[in-house]
């Protein structure tokens, strides 16, 4: 696979790991340690899949951040989707959402009960469903961060151009920078640097992170999702820390350009406006989400079907909120691998395959035993 396998070359990984160790030692010599937050769930997954945590020096810790859209989706959103499905609407969704617990159950269970829930790889499949079944209402579960928002919102663009009347979005779009700010504003969270997301950055551009480097003195390094990208990104963070610098570095230049993707941002801006959003774990954050502008209200499923998205009920005892903020490791949660497993998840971090708890369960549980 071109541009994939070459970034997994073990012959280069080995010296990169040595380099990491040397930089870790240099930091330790100055009495330092590094708590690095990998913001994005795809980084969390890649770290687990390639066993990267084991390759790190002892004084370097990776903390998983709030960058998994499934994990931060509030239970009330799932409740609204289930209510729609029970009303006879066809729900089209990314596979990730099927097993996220709402207050009373999951969409997967709802499907087993006879509701129409279709799994799509691309939002365009929702448009195909709507065209194939003009007698049915199709609602796409419009979740995601900056990377996913433009593809999903282009459905509205398609619906307008093709006069599709039976397609709408249940939106819960979220933005990464406000979540990073919330992490930094919390005095209990100690993060020394950010490993910034690859594909979100491709949309928003590296400059967005400048306030975090400048005002909070946190190194911000953008890296791709392949293991060499991650290892090199971590080296760059340690370099900055050893040298006492804090700047934004883009190490994923092959995809992330200086001004991001203006076409995607223009599309988002045409259809969407900022709104306060509810995050599982982080609570309500101002201007941290996007919703359809008033003139496109007919594509807004929440209003079209009058299913207000409430806060829902989070599972008691679940530490996902703390895990999402990087305050606690999944291993510190009393439910982890006991009452909460991927088969029977209590919290969202166990549901999403890129959720921190799920990644720990899947790749690291018994490695630590």
């Amino acid at each position, binding site marked *: 696979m071109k541009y994939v396998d070459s970034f997994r070359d073990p012959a*280069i990984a080995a010296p*990169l790991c040595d380099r990491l160790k*040397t930089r870790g030692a240099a930091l330790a010599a100055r009495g330092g340690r590094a708590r690095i937050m990998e913001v994005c769930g795809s980084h969390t997954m890649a770290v687990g899949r390639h066993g990267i945590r084991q390759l790190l020096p002892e004084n370097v810790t990776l903390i998983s951040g709030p960058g998994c859209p499934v994990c931060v989706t509030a239970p009330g959103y799932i409740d609204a989707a289930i209510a729609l499905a029970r009303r006879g609407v066809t729900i089209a969704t990314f596979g990730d959402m099927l097993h996220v617990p709402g207050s009373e159950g999951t969409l997967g269970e709802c499907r087993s009960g006879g509701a129409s829930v279709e799994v799509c790889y*691309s939002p*365009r499949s929702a448009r195909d469903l709507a065209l194939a079944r003009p007698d049915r209402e199709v609602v796409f579960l419009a979740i995601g961060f900056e990377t996913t928002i433009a593809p999903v919102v282009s459905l509205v663009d398609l619906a307008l151009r093709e006069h599709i009347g039976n397609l709408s979005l249940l939106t819960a779009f979220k933005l990464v920078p406000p979540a990073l700010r919330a992490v930094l504003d919390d005095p209990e969270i100690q993060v020394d640097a950010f490993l910034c*997301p690859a594909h979100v950055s491709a*949309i928003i551009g590296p400059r967005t992170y400048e306030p975090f480097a400048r005002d909070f003195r946190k190194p911000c390094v953008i890296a791709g999702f392949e293991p*060499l990208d991650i290892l090199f990104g971590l080296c760059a963070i340690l370099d900055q820390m050893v040298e006492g610098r804090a700047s934004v570095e883009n190490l994923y230049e092959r*995809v992330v*350009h200086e001004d991001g993707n203006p076409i995607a941002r223009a599309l988002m801006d045409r259809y969407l406006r900022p709104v306060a959003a509810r995050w599982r774990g982080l609570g309500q954050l101002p201007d941290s989400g996007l919703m359809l502008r008033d003139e496109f209200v007919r594509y807004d499923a929440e209003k079209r079907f009058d299913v207000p998205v409430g806060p829902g009920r989070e599972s008691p005892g679940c530490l996902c909120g703390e895990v999402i903020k990087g305050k606690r490791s999944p291993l510190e949660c009393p439910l982890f691998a006991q009452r909460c497993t991927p088969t029977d998840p209590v919290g969202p971090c166990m549901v999403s395959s890129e959720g921190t708890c799920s990644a720990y369960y899947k790749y690291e549980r018994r490695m630590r035993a």
Partner: protein
Amino acid sequence: MCLAVPMRIQEIRPDGMGIGELAGTRHEVDLSLVKAPGVGDYVIVHAGYAIEKLDENEAGERLALFKELADSWQVHSP
């Protein structure tokens, strides 16, 4: 949050949709979010949409740099 793969654009249809290819796997790719896509270009595909072009020169330079640094670190590391 954003699983995506690099695909090479194999063809572009009149409606602007393209066919992307990765090691024998092909998929329809919506190209409307990238500037001036051309056949032969590599794009990063997320959920069926090209979200950005992949710059082959940058990729080549990065890999060359990796190799160079790896060689020098190997030589100098204790």
